[in-house]
């Protein structure tokens, strides 16, 4: 067992895949000698050289499009969006090109590529540098969407992402980069679509992913003190979605709270709530609650950002509301 940070786990996964497969290469803004805006690619330039770890101009359409074209031509590019918010200038290459090519071309061309991007609020970066946009990606057939919460998952899911033959959106949370956790020595790829039951419980199911898993666990601890036994499920990927694990849990606990940092309206939580309301409504003893950001852009000033960002407190409140 090695103790490492989420950032180091990602860095290790990149390094190992590059060592294993010469078709894997990295590019993006400042990913080279600079090591990436958050330092995630540190050391890779030194090890693999500019040919495989390449700085691009500040042109995100060209970055994602180049990954698409390189993948179509046989490579396995891993490109980086410095912030997920920049998808706005480059969405077409992802959703109309990369995601649809396999289908539009009758299954005859595959696009094995990964777009890595940090998400989330919490560093005072304001409205254009703090969003969580997984719901957009989840709405697009052809994409896979990964949101690891722990170093071990970040490592194992990134191996899987790089080996996957489809475009994968790999969403990292900025505030998790420094989080430490165990990553087993012989850890291999973690399959997509397998949620992780992080804590077993009998009274309420909390479904979360990415940073919100920690809030859910914290909430579970608080609620345990109030005699409420919480089951916490970390989805790990939202496409594919492990609905079975959610349904099984709900059938046991009879109540559900879905939590994410993204704006609640039309977020991933809505999809999960809807699927449960379709498939397991008879098992429910309580309203399905969602915890998510309010319907506002992300504000800058710390007290505002703090008010914007949902966490354990909001989850506890949601659980207490349906248990009252």
């Amino acid at each position, binding site marked *: 067992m090695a103790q490492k940070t989420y950032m180091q786990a990602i860095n290790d996964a990149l390094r190992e895949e590059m060592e294993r497969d010469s078709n894997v290469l990295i590019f993006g803004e400042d990913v080279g000698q600079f090591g990436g805006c958050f330092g995630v690619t540190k050391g890779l330039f030194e090890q693999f050289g500019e040919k495989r770890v390449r700085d691009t101009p500040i042109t995100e359409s060209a970055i994602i*499009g180049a990954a698409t074209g*390189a993948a179509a031509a046989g490579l396995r590019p891993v490109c980086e969006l410095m912030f997920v918010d920049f998808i706005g200038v480059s969405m*077409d290459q992802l959703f109309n*090109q990369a995601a649809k090519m396999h*289908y539009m*071309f009758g299954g005859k061309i595959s696009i094995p590529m990964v777009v890595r991007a940090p998400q989330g609020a919490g560093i005072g970066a304001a409205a254009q540098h703090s969003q969580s946009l997984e719901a957009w990606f989840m709405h697009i057939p052809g994409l896979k969407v990964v949101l690891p919460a722990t170093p071990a998952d970040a490592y194992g899911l990134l191996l899987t992402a790089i080996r996957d033959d489809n475009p994968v959106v790999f969403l990292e949370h900025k505030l998790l980069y420094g989080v430490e956790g165990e990553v087993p020595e012989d850890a291999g790829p973690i399959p997509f679509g397998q949620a992780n039951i992080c804590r077993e419980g009998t009274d309420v199911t909390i479904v979360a992913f990415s940073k919100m898993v920690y809030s859910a666990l914290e909430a579970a601890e608080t609620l345990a003190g109030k005699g409420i036994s919480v089951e916490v499920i970390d989805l790990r990927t939202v496409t594919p979605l492990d609905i079975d694990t959610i349904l099984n849990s709900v059938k046991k606990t009879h109540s559900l709270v879905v939590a994410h940092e993204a704006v609640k309206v039309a977020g991933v939580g809505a999809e999960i709530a809807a699927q449960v309301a379709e498939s397991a409504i008879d098992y429910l003893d309580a309203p399905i609650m969602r915890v998510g950001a309010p319907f506002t852009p992300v504000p800058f000033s710390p007290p505002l950002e703090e008010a914007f960002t949902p966490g354990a407190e909001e989850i506890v409140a949601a659980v207490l509301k349906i248990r009252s």
Partner: protein
Amino acid sequence: MTKSKEKMIQMYMTMYRIRQFESKLQEFFADGKIPGFVHLYLGEEAVASGTCAALRKDDYITSTHRGHGHVIAKGGDLKMMMAEIFGKSTGYCKGKGGSMHIADASLGILGANGIVGGGGPIAAGAGMAIQYRGEDGVVVCFFGDGASNQGTTQEALNLASAWELPVVFVNENNGYGISCPTSKSMAITDIADRAAGYDMPGVIVDGNDVIAVNEAVSAAVERARKGGGPSLIECKTYRWRGHFEGDACTYREKSELDEWVKKDPLPRFSKKLLDDGILSKKELEKLHAKIDTELQEAIAFAEESPLPEPADIFEDVYA
């Protein structure tokens, strides 16, 4: 026959193949046999033909919404093309793509594209793969005058030049993006003038002269193969038909079209082949007949092929 003569004949055949294919589609569309949008390449045949004659089978192209000519010129199978445009399960994309999304990986055709400017970044990426593997392949990115303004195109020009990628940007300047003349969509007259902003050669050619196109593209391709980086070649041409079938073209003068029809690239080139003794009239007719038969077979194939089954929609979403 010398290699160059053979190539001349090939280029002519390609133009004729496109001409006949598109003319048939025009008919079929009018008869209501083809679903969706159809953007015909009639009048622009010399660009695709001259360009692709400069390429190897393993070279790549990215195409556009007006892609039939590119695909045919790169060696696309008429049967599978026609079947696709008819929406049949035997088509290139099993009926999932249609006219705007024909691709053939085995021929390096990375797809027609319904997004104006969509192909540029993808072409740069394919060029990156070639460079990465140290190969001497080349990518041609076809794009229209309208597409030349799109940010994605300009990003691709920049990336290709910054990285010296083996990409040849072939601009098809047919004077219009749908109804909008280039005089309204840009302040410049020659799109080749943009090349300097990326420190790449910018060349203007008569896009209705297949030899001129081929020579310019060949030079750019050689340069790219040797690691000399990208080029931009602007081919001045004209589309004979409306933007898509059904467009009445009220935005342009009939006389303008007439002028361009006089510059029809086919008779112009066949005359040269005849004059230079490369082909006899009889040989020419034989070639025509051969292609006409090929096309008939493609049509029959498409007509006889089955439509896909509804349940097929669920296939091919993921690899």
